[in-house]
């Protein structure tokens, strides 16, 4: 029995070997760090540019047009501007905590990109506990936000930080419950394993291959709403709420520190979208049951030629951007909720629904 499990694990590990693993240990580490950092600094910019443009189009504006072709370098220009700005620390602020907060909020985002699979073999690490790791690390961000809110010595920052704390705690629960349900269905916590499980998951009683979004449409909805709330994206942007709290926990931040908070938000959008793609939308598969070009060999999902690999990365990024698009769309369509309405929605609607979802899926898993 033990041997069998071990054998499976070894086979699985061999199958899901990362393309970023080289013979040289140092080279592997360097490649993986470069991968995560590259993702973290490039993809959010694309997402941010898309937000600028899509939002502008939906609001009868043109969006950025000056910086770069079609304004595509606007966020880069913004970043350069932020670096040049004076770095102000309020006299009453708790200096070290104030300075550390943006970093504490930012770094977890980078770490999560280590486990997110972008395509067949295109990931830095395939942890057995990948999902657990991602959810655990993402919770650290709130610490940075609370630190920023508290250390700023500003009442608006304080209220914003506390709102963020309350909001993230409330929405962590439905988020994790929804994610656990996927893990139960896939019977693995590995993100690569979850993608693989979706490629072989059949609707009970049929031989139609579907992604987890079909049996778990409710879970997907819960995850999506909770992810938006976790990210403080409008309509859940009460921690920032510019018309009430000036800029919430970011009020006192200037220059590069402010930019780090902004990057955290955009990075978070990408991370949450990527998690949804992996958990519910079949990862790098184009359509359920349709293998990528070059992927129909013995290696299954993982042994693809360069064409299949590239196509897989493209498909994942495309799905991520589609989800970002929906997030922007919701931002344009809805005003901001109130803090108590938000809490009520989390505790009275989402948590019971997520528990019910978990129960139903677990029972179904046992029955079929």
């Amino acid at each position, binding site marked *: 029995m033990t041997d069998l499990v071990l054998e499976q694990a070894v086979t699985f590990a061999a199958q899901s070997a990362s393309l970023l693993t080289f013979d040289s240990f140092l080279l592997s580490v360097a490649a993986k760090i470069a991968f995560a950092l590259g993702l973290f600094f490039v993809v959010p910019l694309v997402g941010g540019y898309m937000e600028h443009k899509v939002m502008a189009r939906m609001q009868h504006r043109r969006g950025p047009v000056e910086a770069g072709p079609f304004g595509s370098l606007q966020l880069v220009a913004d970043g350069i501007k932020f670096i040049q700005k004076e770095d102000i620390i309020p006299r009453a602020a708790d200096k070290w905590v104030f300075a550390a907060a943006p970093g504490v909020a930012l770094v977890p985002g980078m770490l999560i990109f280590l486990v997110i699979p972008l395509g067949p073999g295109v990931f830095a690490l395939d942890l057995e506990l990948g999902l657990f790791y991602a959810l655990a690390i993402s919770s650290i961000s709130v610490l940075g936000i609370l630190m920023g809110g508290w250390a700023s010595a500003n009442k608006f920052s304080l209220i914003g930080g506390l709102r963020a704390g309350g909001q993230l705690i409330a929405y962590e629960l439905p988020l994790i419950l929804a994610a656990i349900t996927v893990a139960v269905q896939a019977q693995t916590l590995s993100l690569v394993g979850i993608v693989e499980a979706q490629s072989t998951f059949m609707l009970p009683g049929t031989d139609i291959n579907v992604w987890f979004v079909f049996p778990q449409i409710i879970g997907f909805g819960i995850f999506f709403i909770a992810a938006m709330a976790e990210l403080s994206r409008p309509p859940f942007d009460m921690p920032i709420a510019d018309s009430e709290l*000036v800029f919430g926990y970011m009020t006192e931040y200037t220059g590069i520190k402010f930019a780090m908070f902004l990057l955290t938000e955009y990075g978070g959008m990408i991370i949450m979208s990527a998690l949804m793609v992996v958990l519910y939308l079949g990862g790098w598969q184009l359509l359920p049951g349709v293998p990528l070009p070059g992927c129909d060999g013995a290696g299954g999902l993982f042994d693809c030629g360069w064409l299949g690999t590239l196509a897989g990365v493209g498909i994942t990024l495309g799905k991520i951007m589609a989800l970002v698009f929906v997030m922007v769309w919701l931002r344009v369509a809805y005003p901001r909720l109130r803090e*108590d309405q938000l809490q009520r929605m989390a505790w009275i609607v989402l948590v019971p629904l997520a528990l019910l979802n978990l129960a139903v899926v677990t029972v179904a898993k046992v029955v079929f």
Partner: protein
Amino acid sequence: MTTTEPAPGGVPDNEIFVDGADWEDVVDAVVDDTITVNMGPQHPSTHGVLRLVLELDGETVLRVKPVVGYLHTGIEKNAEYRTWVQGTTFFTRMDYLAPLHNELAFCLGTERLLGIEVPERAQVIRVIMTEFNRIASHLVWLATGGMELGSTTMMTAGFREREHILDLFESQSGLRMNHAYIRPGGLAIDVTDDFTQRCEALLELLPKKIVEYEDLLLRNPIWNDRLRGIGIIDAERCYALGVTGPLLRAAGVPYDLRKAQPYSGIERFDFDVPTETAGDSFARFLVRIEEMRQSMRIIRQALDVLPGGPVMVEDREIAWPSQQALGPDGIGNDPEYIRHIMGESMESLINHFKLVTQGFTVPAGQVYEAIESPRGELGYAITSTGTNKPYRVHVREPSFVNLQAADEMSSGHMVSDVVVVVASLDPVMGGVDR
């Protein structure tokens, strides 16, 4: 959520006293373990420079203290040193979202003192322009109110349509805002030939756009949740505080000065006074949306009856300057007229010179003339001692009076609701501080 009942009569037991004192003293004066937050005068949602001192228990608002005066312009006092015509150019800058209403109220008062009757064409154009101004003002309210609740789409949409109305104003008066278009005795200049066309194009466009706003907001669950039951004020308290305008009508009182004390012949037109009974922010939203529709009804009828004739009284002693033309940079004297006074008629030149430098005199007396501005009863109490300048002009500004209700409407709600309450009050600080 713990809610605190608003104190009876709106007077809290231990009042926060805010004057020019040091902020630390203000904070120290509050003894219990609440926090005092200074919202404004520089704050993203306080409509210019309104300052609200909030006393919070957690997120629950115990008290709101509006502090005004940061935009004090001294317009009322200044007007005492300006001729009657120059006064128009000042008052138009008070409530800058309803400039034509300010001009109209001042001119109606002046005309009553002068005892003159304005030509009918001028009256009808005044009605058309002020009703368009009401729509523009409500659009800004919708836009800024939407933005304050996080609906940035409403903001861009509202300002987009308002721009069309301002285009109309610019084409007729030369200026987007602060027109000084309505003058004692009539209008500064007659409308252009394409005026009717322009108005009709707007009447074509705006109803469609209002439907769009309703699509965006009316059944939007979050918009409903945020507005319903927030900032309730009933008719009784409206009377007590002198609150007028959409706030009073949203509390169920069909009081509209256009019906109660008609001016500029507005009684000839058929329109309804929309009312709601809830008295909350959502009711005010509905009332304002419907008011835009009613304003368009009035404009449509007014365009149908727009008569010909002069737009200024015949009296050469008052009609200053009698001939004007719309130039590229606003209105100025007509070249024909310049030729006439400079080259042909000495008497005309003298008349022009006297009118420009001294203005006309207004018989001694006192009037109070009120009209329905987008924000409520806008009244001008004018005293003349028979000279070429007003002795005193006091303005009853609806923004200022309505702002009194802010505390009563927000106490017991949350911080986020203060923003909703202030937005639904729709104060314009230029009008509040004068």
